[in-house]
Structures are given as C-alpha cells and as structure tokens.
C-alpha cells in the first residue's frame, strides 16, 4: 500500500514538473498586422491610401510609400513577410525592412524586393534586419495604383 502511494506521489510530482517546464518553454509565436496598421511615409499622400478589409490599398498615381511598424518582442533578427496584391507588373510593389536604434545613431536596411509575379496575390520577403536594445523596426512598401498590402507577419 505504501509502495503504491509512493509511486503515485512520484508520478504526480513528475507530471507537475513537466507541466511547469511546458509552461515556461518559449512558445514559437509569430506576429502579424493588417496592412492598414501603417501610415503613408509622405503625409501629403495619405489620402491616396484606403482601407480594404484590413489591407491598405493605394489609389494614386505612380507609386507611394507605406510604412508599417513592427512590434519587437525580443531584441534580435526580424524577417518580415508582406502579403500583397500586385496590380500590374511585379515591379509595382517593392518592400524593404529597416531597423533603427533608439537614438537614431544606427540604421540598417534590407534590399527593396519585388514579388516574382504581377497581377497576383503573393508574398514579399525583403530580408532580415537585426534590432538593437530599445530599437525599432518597420517594413516599408512602395505601391503602384491598385496594389495592396494585406498583412505583414514576422
């Protein structure tokens, strides 16, 4: 009887320990944001952007830049992915991610990357930027008329 009690107690302790470890283990999480969560880089062009089911759509001429800030949970490298609709040629959308230190003394940028196809919903991954302590990051996209940014994930 005593032996049974001891075994049960041991199993209970093991189960509690396993649950504690599982609760403390880092969860592989991803951040996401609708395209409308950004802003026009040039305020005078803000009226040329509109919201469309959480996406941002550009309705103006030529191209204009839309900046989307990225929440940083942990200092380190970020690889944001923009899911976009390209209206016309693939070059009508190009995106770049950037990171800036708190005192703006350090700035890093990725390339400006365009989707591989036009007239389609597709994703753009400009590359990885590394944030420094208390720094910030964003992804910026130039959009041609009719193009959209639906979401950004990182």
């Amino acid at each position, binding site marked *: 009887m005593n032996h049974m009690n001891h075994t049960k107690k041991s199993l209970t302790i093991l189960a509690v320990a396993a649950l504690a470890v599982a609760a403390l283990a880092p969860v592989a999480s991803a951040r996401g944001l609708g395209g409308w969560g950004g802003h026009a880089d040039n305020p005078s062009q803000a009226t040329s952007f509109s919201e469309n089911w959480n996406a941002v759509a550009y309705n103006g001429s030529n191209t204009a830049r839309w900046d989307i800030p990225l929440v940083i949970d942990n*200092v*380190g*490298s970020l690889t944001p992915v923009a899911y976009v609709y390209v209206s016309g040629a693939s070059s009508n959308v*190009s995106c*770049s991610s*950037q990171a800036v*230190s708190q005192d*703006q*003394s*350090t*700035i*890093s*940028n*990725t*390339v*400006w990357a365009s989707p591989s196809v036009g007239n389609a919903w597709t994703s753009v991954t*400009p*590359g*990885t*930027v*590394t*944030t*420094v*302590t208390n720094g910030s990051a964003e992804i*910026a996209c*130039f959009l041609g008329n009719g193009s959209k940014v639906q979401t950004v994930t990182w």
Partner: protein
Amino acid sequence: MKTSHILASVVALAGIGVGIFIQNRCNDAKLAKLRKELNAIHMEATAAAADRADEDERPQRVAPAIVPFVQAAAPSSEAQPNEPEHAPPTVPAKPHSWTAQDLSDHYAAAFTAEDEDADWASRARQTAEERVRADLPAGSELRSVECRASICRIETSHADRDGFREFARRAFNDPTTGVWNGGSFSTIVSGNTDPGTPIVVVSYLAREGSNLPPPDPSEQP
C-alpha cells in the same frame, strides 16, 4: 567437581592467557615497525619539500581555492595550463541584447574577412563614390570608400545628426536616390556627443541585390 577437572580448567585458562600475551607482543612489534616506516616516509617528504622551497622561492606554492578574476583572466608568462581550480567562477548566463557596437563589430568582421574581387571592387568603389557624393547633404563629406568581394565600407562625415539621417535615407533607403539596391548598415562612430564636432559615420553596403549577412545568435557575447 573432581580435582582433575579443576586442574584441567586452570591449565586451559593459563594457556589462553599466555596465548593472548604472546599475540599482544606480536602486535606491539608490528605497530612499532609501522611507526618506524611512517616516520621514515615523513622525514623523506619533509626533506623533499625543503629542497623544492630552496629551488623556487615563490611565496605561494599551493594554488588558492579562488583566484581573483582579473588575475585569472590576465595573460601571464607564469600562467599554468590545466589548472581547473584557477578558472573564474562560472556566472549564470543572462539574456543578451544586441548593441550597436555588437552589430558594428559583426559587419566590420564580415567585411574584413572578405578577399577582394578586384574587378567588382574597382567598379563598385567608383560607382559608390559618385553616388554617395550626390547624396551628401550640405556640410557632409565623403571620407573613404573601400570595397572587397560583396561589401563596401563607406566612411562619411556630417555636420550634425540631421545630416546623417538625410544621407542615410537618400543613400540607402530611397530606391530613387540610393547608391544601389543593397542591404546596408550605418552607425555613428565618433562625434556623437560633442556638439559642433562633425559626426563620423561608417556604413556597410552589400552588393547590388544582396543583403548584408545578419549576425548569428551564437555570436552574442
């Protein structure tokens, strides 16, 4: 009880007593011999220690249990390898954050590690010099451009932070004015805190169409 039985018992007891006496004598002799051997060993050890002390007059022959961290870390001609008791006490790992200096060191190391692709480096340097000069705001100067195989190092100076930000945006973040479409990293290396002193900036620019190699988490100091 018969007399013969009593005598036999006395004799037996006497025999046992004699046996015990003889055994004790033997044990005493063995103990004495062991003491002698121990004394001899002790004398030899003392003599050897005295000899070593004569040869080496360093004050501390025995490693202390804890050595001050600076002493343990400092390179010394007297450093003794394979002395685990000299290792500094282990410090629990703490979460590390990248600093601008960490990143600057990383990109500097990546640039320095490259062999020169003479053909690309020559053309890239020329292009970079022309375009950087075009992107410099008033009060800014191009100090140097050096290119290797896939990265160029560009050093500029600026009258103030606004000049640096303007330059960084035009040269590396605006596709219409950029030096070329490559990933970049720029950081102020001097003049950051002294008003009136020009700000010196070092930028690393990846080959067109490429990003700079991001630091690996394993590089975290």
